[in-house]
């Protein structure tokens, strides 16, 4: 049975006539205890869905901020197993907020795809976003994930032309993640109008919600993008909030609050997107 939490949450936000706020944090950044507290507090701060980044040594699609977040977690001894443990802990107090794991394929491949899928499902994960698995490699993880009852959320980008888009959407479930620009995470959106047009183009081909990510940093960005998109994803800005709160590389008294304050402000942004 595929997890329904994602569909339910997007529907609930649509009912409130606003986009969903999707928050990305890196699991275990800057350390496991702080990372868990950040994760646990996200829903109360205003996050509708959570993307939990699985740290990887070679994050080829990420800019410096998220690279460093992953390095902090790995330096603290974080592993894929601890990421799943964080989800398990989170689920003790929250049965409704969807959690999507985001990352790169090799740690999952190394863990064993089948074992990973069943452990992730059991931990309470709702979906996966795996950056380096395009639909050409669907047999690797996408099809097995769908069979295991996990959503497989696909990225579409400005380079995804119409003929490809059809194929990209074929095995996508949960939602569609539109990457707002050709670039790595943390770069700036240069053309808001083009993003809106792209969302419209994708929505014409699917009933799934379309979330937009990459380059959304402030409540204003969220409000602007959230006019057309069903969800806005914020990642780099939150990971930067962790980074700037650190004292000598370690979590400080302000770390957890810094992330949650920014989430609260973004939550306010999505609420005025269509007001």
């Amino acid at each position, binding site marked *: 049975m595929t997890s329904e939490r994602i569909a339910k949450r997007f529907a609930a936000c649509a009912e409130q006539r606003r986009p969903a706020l999707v928050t990305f944090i890196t699991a275990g950044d800057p350390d496991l205890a702080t990372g868990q507290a950040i994760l646990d507090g996200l829903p109360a701060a205003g996050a509708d869905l959570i993307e939990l980044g699985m740290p990887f040594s070679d994050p080829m699609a990420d800019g410096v901020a998220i690279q460093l977040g992953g390095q902090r977690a*790995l330096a603290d001894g974080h592993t894929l197993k601890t990421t799943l443990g964080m989800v398990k802990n989170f689920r003790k107090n929250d049965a409704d907020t969807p959690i999507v794991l985001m990352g790169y394929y*090799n740690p999952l491949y*190394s*863990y064993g795809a089948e074992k990973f899928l069943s452990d992730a499902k059991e931990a309470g994960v709702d979906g996966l976003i795996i950056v380096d698995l*395009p639909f050409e490699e669907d047999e690797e993880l996408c099809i097995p994930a769908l069979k295991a009852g996990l959503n497989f959320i696909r990225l579409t*980008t400005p*380079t995804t032309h119409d003929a490809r888009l059809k194929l990209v959407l074929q095995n996508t479930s949960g939602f569609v993640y539109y990457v707002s620009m050709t670039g790595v995470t943390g770069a700036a959106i240069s053309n808001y109008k083009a993003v809106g047009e792209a969302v419209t183009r994708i929505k014409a081909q699917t009933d799934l919600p379309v979330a937009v990510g990459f380059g959304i940093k402030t409540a204003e960005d969220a409000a602007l993008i959230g006019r057309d998109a069903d969800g806005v994803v914020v990642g780099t800005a939150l990971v930067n909030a962790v980074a700037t709160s650190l004292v000598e590389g370690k979590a400080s008294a302000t770390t957890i609050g810094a992330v949650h304050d920014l989430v609260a402000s973004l939550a306010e942004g999505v609420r005025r997107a269509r007001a």
Partner: protein
Amino acid sequence: MNMSKPNSLRNGPDEEGRFGIFGGRFVAETLMPLIGELSDAYAAAKIDPAYIKELDDLNTHYTGRPSPLYFAERMSEHLKGAKIFFKREELNHTGSHKLNNGLGQILLAKRMGKTRIIAETGAGQHGVATATVCARFGLPCVVYMGATDVERQAPNVFRMKLLGAEIVPVTAGAGTLKDAMNEALRDWVANVDDTYYLIGTAAGPHPYPAMVRDFQSIIGAELREQFAQKEGGTPDALVACIGGGSNAIGLFHEFLDDPDVKMYGAEAGGHGIDVENGHAASMTGGRPGVLHGNRTYLLQDDDGQILEGHSISAGLDYPGVGPEHSFLKDSGRVTYVPITDNEALEAFQLCAKLEGILPALESAHGLAEVIKLAPTMDKDQTIVLCLSGRGDKDVDTVGKHLGVKF
């Protein structure tokens, strides 16, 4: 480019870019359409007589091909075994086999209408080759190079600058080749319209492994002819060093279906294969995984995090290897062996003294394997080493290891 025979080892890759379970196209969606475009452009170019002729002309008059097949007489005498030959890729313009690939790809980039070239480099030989072809064709060139490598390959950094390239030192990770490749991929994702990524070895997403192999296969093709003329028949053994594996696959590919030709790939054994993260022998000391667009043998920890690896030679300390080599390892066709830093250093010095040739430290790994192999073979048997590059760039490094103060 060969005609496929049913049981040939030379048929790979398939349509999906697979060599058995290895290879593939594990890249972000943003790059997929570009990789498709590249596949199409290469498929059209390699059968276009005009493209083939232009590349042939450049190989002859710019690079100086064919590279000689040289009988290393004193080395052979010294080792008291097989006759040893060097396929002298170090005599190519720019000093290594890397230009074979650089020229093939720059002509392709031009055909595709690309106006900006990016590349990654380790030892700097591929960076130099890329900067060279960019100068030759008047295209701007950005070379990503790990900060550690920028330091240990200073002469090559200056060479690239003279050739007009912009060098971007990469500080992420340990600042070596894999980090440079990550950064080049990030650049490509951000500059999809005008930029061509000129990968320097037979790795990366399909079609790079097959395309780079094709450009380097001129090494083996020339060798077959030269050897038949000089000695008759085919060599008994071929030896090459393995970084990403481009000079090796270029030497081997021609002979994969010749069962009497034994093949040996020399991986970087660094401080020794038992030293964790102290070597870069991905096939001897790693396991299959997915990185930089393909499935292949990788150095990784229990969690699937990629290790940096170590080698005295900046061109070999890559934690992966081209997917075709992973396939050839598993099929048993090629034997891959680790060679330590010290063995390479000794081979470097021996070659200088006996043959008056300074080999690149990369190539010295291959030579160290020849030194082990030759004495076990008969005097009427033959070994050909791909002398992939010249050692001028490594004189500083070798000096430091031998305790010389400059």
